[in-house]
């Protein structure tokens, strides 16, 4: 049972553009929402995370927007760079962590 739905599956963005990845969850008990970045041949690395008591969190070019009533959250990558090309996973946590299916981002120079 997929508890976190992530879209799109793949995304192509031009250098300098904004990348947006969306996730939706079902279980209202989730209380922590991390995003992971994975490069080929490497394990996922924690990128940024948010708790549901805030609507937005920004770290450098990465921003999480959180809509508790809609049970949705999204990752925005501003000024996208070719080095951002990776697979991104959203996740939701309560007693355990449930991952989205992943989004493969390609940033073209």
């Amino acid at each position, binding site marked *: 049972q997929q508890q976190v739905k992530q879209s799109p599956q793949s995304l192509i963005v031009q250098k300098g553009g904004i990348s947006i990845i969306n996730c939706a969850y079902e279980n209202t008990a989730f209380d*922590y929402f991390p995003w992971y970045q994975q490069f080929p041949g490497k394990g996922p690395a*924690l990128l940024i995370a948010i708790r549901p008591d805030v609507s937005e969190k920004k770290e450098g070019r990465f921003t999480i927007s959180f809509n508790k009533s809609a049970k949705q959250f999204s990752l925005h990558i501003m000024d996208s760079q070719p080095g951002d090309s990776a697979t991104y996973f959203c996740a939701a946590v309560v*007693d355990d*962590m449930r991952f*989205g299916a992943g989004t493969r981002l390609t940033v073209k120079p």
Partner: protein
Amino acid sequence: SQTIHQWPATLVQPVGSPLSLECTVEGTSNPNLYWYRQAAGRGLQLLFYSVGIGQISSEVPQNLSASRPQDRQFILSSKKLLLSDSGFYLCAWSKKSNQPQHFGDGTRLSIL
């Protein structure tokens, strides 16, 4: 700071052979430990998790087993590998179940 080690990085095994993948964590005590499998271009499938020595929970029935002989050591095993066991195996740790997980760099397993 905490670090997680997985080895080997790559492994090629014949069908029917045994398997042992090892994961160790440094810099923390009594971590939660996890084994995931990731098929090519796919998401993360949780295989096993452990909240303490000798305590293993299995998420999916399969040809694999896990053991935790020491606090910071997690082992993934199989007695006889199948072709379908090929994939990218990732170990992860967290301080508690409701806190973020931190991943190792994985083992690429190919079954011939």
